[in-house]
């Protein structure tokens, strides 16, 4: 199973709070590979995929942040029109619900990396595999 580790950080909706998270990781030389921000009216959740997950979690906790670790799936797709639609089409056709998704920051020539959180991770994995969608492992994430 190719799952990658994601760190979620609870942040209140106030100016500069996201900056604090990002700065903290930067200061400790932790590279952010992907980031998304989900928000409600009062609070947000920063989701991160980084190089050095364990270290990042420790640093965040030591600095008073509430964190959670989740396993998500990263798919490598062609960086061309319709490629994402193709993946989503497969998922929709198999009644797979996406909780959330976001994209990777660092590009690979001609490729895009999208991360997904599914409500039924195992089922999704199986279907993606059957349909030949390339999924990345934690090690492979490190490389890009």
């Amino acid at each position, binding site marked *: 199973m190719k799952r990658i580790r994601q760190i979620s950080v*609870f942040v209140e909706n106030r100016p500069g709070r996201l900056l604090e998270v990002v700065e903290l990781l930067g200061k400790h030389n932790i590279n952010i590979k992907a980031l998304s921000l989900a928000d409600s009216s009062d609070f947000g*959740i920063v989701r991160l995929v980084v190089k050095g997950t364990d270290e990042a979690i420790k640093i965040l906790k030591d600095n*008073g942040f*509430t964190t*959670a670790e989740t396993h998500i799936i990263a798919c490598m797709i062609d960086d061309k029109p319709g490629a994402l639609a193709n993946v989503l089409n497969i998922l929709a056709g198999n009644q797979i619900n996406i*909780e959330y998704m976001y994209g990777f920051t660092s590009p690979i020539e001609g490729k895009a990396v999208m991360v997904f959180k599914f409500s039924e991770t195992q089922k999704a994995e199986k279907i993606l595999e059957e349909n030949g969608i390339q999924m990345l492992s934690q090690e492979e994430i490190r490389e890009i």
Partner: protein
Amino acid sequence: MIYDDEMETLPREALEALQLKRLQHTVERVYNLVPFYKRKFDEAGVKPDDVKTLDDLKRLPFTTKQDLRDNYPFGMFTLPLEQVVRVHASSGTTGKPTVVGYSKRDIEVWSDLMARSLSAAGVSKGDIIQNAYGYGLFTGGLGAHYGGERLGATVIPISGGNTKRQIMIMKDFGSTVLTATPSYTLYLAETLKEMGISRDEIKLRVGILGAEPWSEEMRNTIEEKLGIDAIDIYGLSEIMGPGVAVECAEAKHGLHVWEDAFIPEIIDPETGEVLPDGEEGELVITTILKEAIPLIRYRTRDITRIIKEPCKCGRTHRRIERIKGRTDDMLIIRGVNIFPSQIESLLMETEGVEPHYQLIVDRIDNLDTLEVKVEVSEEIFSDEIKHLQKLKERIEKDIKDLYGITVKVTLVEPKSLQRFEGKAKRVIDKRKI
């Protein structure tokens, strides 16, 4: 207008003689009928016979809200339940309410005193009273209702809420009097404006407002917006309910305490020492006419002073100043009493939040609001917004269900709320009253 001419203008000397007689009778009864009082009196080394003058009152022990709670539910009653025709209750810190009972005569007396209060506020037979106080365990609704009927006015038992309907009825029925909390009255005023109903379309003339602290500035705003006389009324369920004291329309300054039924004292809340008239302190009330649950020197925790100067209205009953605040941290949100510790105990029982919280009270659009800020815990923190949203909604619902008030819960980061080394100050009251 004076409702009970003889009693309301009784010369001080005669009034005080009556008070002494009634006090002695009450003391005799509670000593013999309530084990709590017998113990308290014995501890203090006083016997009912020692009460020879009104001045002897200060030798008697106090009664506190905690005493009522300790004797929950009926331990302070002097009558068997067969002779108690009604009970009311108010919320308490532990979740257990404080319970009070009324004999048939107590209801009669309450109705009379409330009729007196309404009359003092300028209400008379022929008025149509829209009673927007809540009906239920809270004494406001039924208290105002019985008083209005006793006076011979027409009472609309509409209770609180459903503002548009309130306004429709106010307009169609031609309500002349409103009984409600001050904050709700202001809200009504604004809704009227929003609905485009002009002052000429309603017949409202007087508002008898109470059940929460309010200011002179708020009175001015209400009077201006609604074009009515806004009268302050005071009461508390432990003592009776609404109608313990009321402003007269003539002076609109200070609330006459119906001294043939209640003896007010002002004490230093720290030492318990009785303060002379005119000095500010905690209001203590002894009921001298109640049958089912007479209370000796009940500590109201309300801060006020006694106005000793005679009133121009001719009533001889002394006045208390508009209530300034509470001695403790009890919050009154839209007329509902709530203690920070009540919220605390609820949060303690909720999985996923830290026992660190802050209560922010404000008045937004003239309605009291309560925001509960609570820290989210590592355990419950999930990567999905909807789980946190559910947690927030669950706390909001629990508070609504248990205490009947609508609050806004805000989840905040751990350790982001202030920590305290000594006494915690968990409440931030932004209301300007």
